């Protein structure tokens, strides 16, 4: 298959530098997750005005914002203060964006630091010639109107400079978990989705393959509208991996169990798997996806292959639904052109031969700790007539198996 690396810079034979700038408390959380869990070709830099959170972070680089302004105590939810801090640390910020080809900005909007600093960094990164993708969350509704307004303003600021924005609404993400789960678990699940999206975007851009996703395609989808951002990711291995990975991806709450895919006008499907990924599997997945999308929607397919034989198959779905106008479409569209002239180096030919980094395994979906039938060491006979019905499981015991067998009662 012939690939046309549109963004290839033949002059510099170096790997593209992908950098994650995580801003504010929420951002640092995500950076920590990425640093701990995934081996992505991604440099992480934590930026926060809260010294405590920085100290606890495991990010490789840390930048304290406005040590004089905030005294390391954080911006206290006040964007004005966050802005002050950003101004104070302008030179550090400038340094942090230097030399990166692609910059991910990760922040929770609505607070002080994230809302104020993210637009600033986006501007700096843009001026530096990097491709800027912002991954941000909107606050929960119950956090009050003030916060969501701050978030909206920040969003406008970011959209003026970033090439693409991936935004998640916390309210929607909280629906991932059952209503009765612990708060901590719910927050962790929200963080996890953010983490997954950054991880899969990184894979998408950095992993070579027979059918690489062109960056303009990706940007096209991310930019295509202001409606809801659709995202789903799943991974699996074993004999039925194609089906299982896709199932998982479709189960994502941000797709509303696959239903929202019908409304998407453009969907990007990225498959990353081991060498043993067969064409039939790719075909099966795409067929299944096309059943879930409307027939007018445009499908982009990307396939990347890892050297590692044991790598799982990862399916990532990215799309946009709704045709609501983007916040400031003209501003960003105008600004994009000059930067295109000096595209960042992606996919240099040499690195395709020797990419050391296999696609990092995405976080496995958190499934409720429910004992499934497969988990129990059953003899086939033991369930008798209840063989094919939903098992009755109480406290981890399959009660369909006769009591006397489980208790080993013998005469």
């Amino acid at each position, binding site marked *: 298959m012939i690939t046309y690396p549109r963004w290839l810079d033949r002059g510099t034979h170096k790997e593209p530098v992908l950098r994650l700038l995580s801003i504010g408390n929420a951002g640092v959380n995500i950076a920590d997750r990425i640093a701990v869990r995934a081996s992505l070709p991604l440099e992480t830099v934590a930026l926060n005005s809260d010294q405590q959170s920085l100290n606890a972070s495991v990010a490789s680089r840390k930048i304290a914002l406005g040590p004089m302004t905030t005294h390391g105590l954080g911006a206290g939810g006040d964007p004005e203060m966050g802005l002050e801090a950003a101004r104070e640390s302008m030179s550090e910020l400038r340094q942090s964006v230097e030399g990166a080809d692609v910059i991910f900005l990760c922040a929770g909007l609505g607070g002080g630091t994230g809302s104020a600093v993210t637009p600033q960094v986006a501007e700096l990164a843009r001026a530096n010639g990097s491709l800027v993708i912002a991954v941000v969350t909107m606050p929960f509704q119950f956090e009050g109107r003030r916060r969501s307004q701050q978030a909206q303003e920040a969003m406008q600021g970011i959209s003026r400079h970033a090439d693409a924005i991936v935004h998640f609404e916390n309210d929607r993400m909280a*629906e991932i978990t*059952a*209503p*009765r789960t612990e708060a901590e678990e719910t927050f962790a699940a929200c963080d996890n989705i953010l983490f997954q999206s950054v991880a899969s975007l990184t894979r998408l851009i950095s992993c070579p393959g027979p059918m690489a996703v062109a960056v303009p395609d990706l940007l096209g989808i991310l930019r295509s509208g202001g409606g809801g951002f659709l995202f789903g990711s799943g991974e699996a291995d074993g004999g039925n991996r194609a089906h299982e990975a896709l199932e998982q991806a479709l189960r994502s709450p941000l797709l509303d169990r696959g239903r929202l895919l019908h409304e998407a006008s453009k969907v990007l499907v990225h498959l990353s798997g081991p060498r043993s990924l067969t064409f039939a599997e790719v075909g099966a997945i795409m067929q299944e996806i096309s059943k879930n999308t409307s027939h007018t929607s445009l499908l982009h397919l990307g396939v990347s292959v890892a050297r590692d034989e044991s790598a799982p198959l990862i399916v990532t779905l990215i799309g946009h639904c709704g045709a609501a106008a983007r916040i400031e479409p003209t501003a960003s569209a105008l600004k994009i052109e000059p930067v295109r002239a000096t595209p960042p180096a992606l996919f240099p030919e040499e690195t395709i031969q020797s990419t050391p980094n296999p696609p990092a395994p995405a976080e496995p979906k958190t499934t409720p700790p429910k004992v499934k039938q497969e988990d129990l060491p059953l003899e086939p*006979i*033991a369930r*008798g*007539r*209840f063989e094919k*019905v*939903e098992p*009755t499981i*109480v*406290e981890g015991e399959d*009660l*369909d198996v*006769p*009591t*006397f*067998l489980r*208790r080993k*009662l013998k*005469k």
Partner: protein
Amino acid sequence: MAREKIHVGLEIGTTKVCAVVAECNRDGEMRILGVGESPSRGVRKGEIVDFKNATQCVHDALADAEDRSDYEIKGVWLAISGSHIKSFNNRSAVTLPEESTITAKEIESVEFKAKEAGIPKEDVIIHSVIQRYYVDGQEGVIDPHGMMGTKLEADFHIIHGVTNRIQNAIRCVREFDIDVEDIVVNSVASAQVVLDEQQKQAGAVLIDIGGGVTDYIVYKEGAVCHSGVIAIGGDHITNDLCIGLRIPIARAEKLKIEEGSAITENISASEKITLKNDTGFSGRDIDRLMLNMIIQARLEELFGILRKRIQEVVPEHLLGAGILLTGGCSLLRGIREAAESVFPGTPVYLAHAQAVSGPMSAFENPQLSTCIGAAKYAQAVHAEMPYESLLNRLKGFFSGRM
């Protein structure tokens, strides 16, 4: 409105589908006109697994009930069960402006708030049963209507289940253009006729062991404090016997009914039951001790699980009226003794529908408790409704004019 009203209760059970046609007076008396039954197919553990067959059974049972009661059924009250039905207790509160009395509006909004509690997305609330009100922290208010207060709180017992599974049962009935007036959870229905007010006040547990599932409901101080479903029933005993004694299911079922017991004492090890030859089955001798041990183990385990769940919400000494067993499986010999051994010190009774008249064979049969209960529930709801709806209609009338 002193006319009698006829209500039909329908239960799509694991073993049988039954419909009870009952005539109800406004003062709460109930007379059974006819009972229709049909052996059930396509139902496992209280839930429909084969829609076509189940629909046919519902049809047969309703037709049978129409024949026997000489009444054309137009609508039924459907009893629902299955392991997807869950419950929890929830307290909600509303704040009132200064110096105001509590009206129906506040009571409504406190119930509405209680229902906002998180249930899974695919679930629907079936019942929200009031437990008690608090007015400004004052406990034990039974009816806050017209009281003065600034804060109204209420504890509700909320029962919810998976929407699609409930819809399946409803669709089964609607196939024949028969309306489902409302649904009621098995345990709530059974409690309507098996427990009387005194028992509810004294504290009681009603355990309805059916073919596929066991429904239970716990009353404390007159209010529901816990309810639930465990997907274990008589079928499990039959299955245990089938596996344990290596006999076919149909023989196991017959053996359970004819010879089965949950008492293992005073049985000599050599006592045998002879099973006769049958097509496809050569006769065999079976140890009575083995038979009873298998049944006993299953029942004791079931009661053990129930005890654990009940103890979490109410200590045993508060169960003044004890434990009442009903449902088809309560006909099994020795089940009372098995329950007593698990709940030491708590009285255990076998119970059936009370305070209804009609053919004795109908209401004294514990298999019909739920079904009669569903009709009784209908009557209880209707007894409250005409008054309310008249009021509402008047309200609508006035506001429309103004």
